[in-house]
């Protein structure tokens, strides 16, 4: 079976090449962030941590990081609350027109991000809500709620509804049955949905960039404008921090809930 072996090795070679292609930009950035040169170069010349110090000593970057974290937390709490309730209604309560509602909840995911961004820019200007934190947080909830609904409905579909009915028969009220029985069972789905929400909000550019008011700046928009202004190694340093955080977060999520099943 030499032909089969050749095929196997060809396939493995292709797999290695493509996985290399997928990780290449992250590797290159990580390398470039340690270079002593004031311009971006790979392989790095010399070895320094000064670009990391430059980023962490830059008040604008530190503010953007804090702002992005707070925004992503607020958006995640809101979309998990609304999304879990909606998923429960769709799967367990069989509301009339459920398919239409499900499609509507998914719509912000299908629409181009830039369209959602400019639509909200116009609308907020009309109702004088432009540049407000609430407006921005609500916009982020709109684009994160589909991820919560998707993960939680998938989880709910795998849970036997009779478990909850049993709790009801044994005298638990509806909310108690939900919080004591159903919620613990769908915890991986809720966790995955929350994680997606946080990442989608934290990474967003096409919606944020149109809605940021004076004194507001998210990290990805800050990096985006820094790149447009001119490339330097401090951008590589902040990027490297994000690469490490993403890698560690993903590894933890994989061990904890088997994250890849929810993607």
């Amino acid at each position, binding site marked *: 079976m030499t032909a089969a072996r050749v095929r196997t090795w060809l396939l493995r070679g292709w797999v290695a090449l493509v996985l290399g292609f997928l990780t290449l930009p992250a590797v290159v950035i990580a390398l470039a962030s340690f270079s002593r040169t004031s311009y971006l170069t790979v392989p790095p010349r010399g070895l320094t941590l000064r670009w990391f110090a430059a980023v962490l000593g830059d008040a604008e970057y530190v503010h953007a990081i804090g702002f992005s974290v707070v925004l992503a937390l607020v958006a995640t709490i809101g979309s998990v609350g*609304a999304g879990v309730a909606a998923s429960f209604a769709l799967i367990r309560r069989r509301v009339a027109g459920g398919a239409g509602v499900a499609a509507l909840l998914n719509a912000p995911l299908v629409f181009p991000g830039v369209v959602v961004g400019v639509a909200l820019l116009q609308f907020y200007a009309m109702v004088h809500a432009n540049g407000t934190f609430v407006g921005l947080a609500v916009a982020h909830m709109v684009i994160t709620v589909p991820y919560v609904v998707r993960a939680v409905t998938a989880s709910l579909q795998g849970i036997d509804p009779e478990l909850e009915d049993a709790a009801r028969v044994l005298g638990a009220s509806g909310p108690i049955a939900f919080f004591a029985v159903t919620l613990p069972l769908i915890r991986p789905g809720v966790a995955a949905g929350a994680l997606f929400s946080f990442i989608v909000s934290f990474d967003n550019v096409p919606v944020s960039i149109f809605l940021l008011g004076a004194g507001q700046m998210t990290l990805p928009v800050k990096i985006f404008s820094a790149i447009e202004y001119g490339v330097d190694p401090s951008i590589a340093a902040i990027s490297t921090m994000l*690469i490490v955080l993403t890698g560690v977060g993903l590894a933890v999520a994989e061990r904890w809930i088997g994250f890849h099943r929810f993607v």
Partner: protein
Amino acid sequence: MRHGHGWWLLAPALLLLFVAFILPVGTMVPMSFRPYVPLVGITGGFTARHYVKLVTDSYYLEIIGRTLGLGLIVTGSTLVIGYPLAFFLARTRSRWRSWLTILVVFPLMLNLVVRTFGWIALLAQNGLVNQALQALGVVDGPVKLLFNFVGVFIGLTHIFLPFMVLVLIGAIQNIPRDVEDAARVLGASWGSAFFRVTLPLSAPGILSGSILVFVLTISALVTPRLLGGPTYQVMSTLIYDEFLQRLNWPAGSAQSLLLTVMVLTLVYLSSRLARRTGTGA
């Protein structure tokens, strides 16, 4: 299973979508028919001029054509590059499988601006790709790989490849191995078993993966902006400039609605097609 009560649970999500999605997108429709006078701004009245310009002016037609062309070619490249990888990940019995899959998910979770920035470092005049090309003697001097088709094409292919791979893994996993084995037992060569059995059976995945990547490509803003620069425009970057630089909201609204209609038509057609072929793709 009880009925009722459901609408109360749906209320927060529906209210959120109504106020911050349906209303804002809805207001773009009247806005797209408002006249715009340079140096004056948006005026009262009604005009279909912005739409007429979009389908007659060669400047806009070129951008629309370029957007759709990129959509097609990026879809094709992610399919060709991604299918063997998806096939491997769907069929391997390696204990590394879930970690290799995580390697596909990792770029997907990594910040989009960061990923795109990586390609700027790679594709710049003195970047790694140009260094490699010169070292290998493929080219004599640095090649322009940024702010043109090449840069945007490579960047978008990289960004959307994980989506294609993950959709294809799901589709290929749904094909029982026995079907391929049966074809082989009945005398089919590996090639004909693959091209006449496996590949056609994964068609629903190919269709939904392709629609997904096409739609994402024509909607993309960050990657075309950073790798294409201000001159190599696609529809998203055109809308971006219209709203933030030229402040011509009516024209921007018309462009946004055209892009949205293109996306929704595709999504609708693909769901019709999936239903007709009896697949749940």
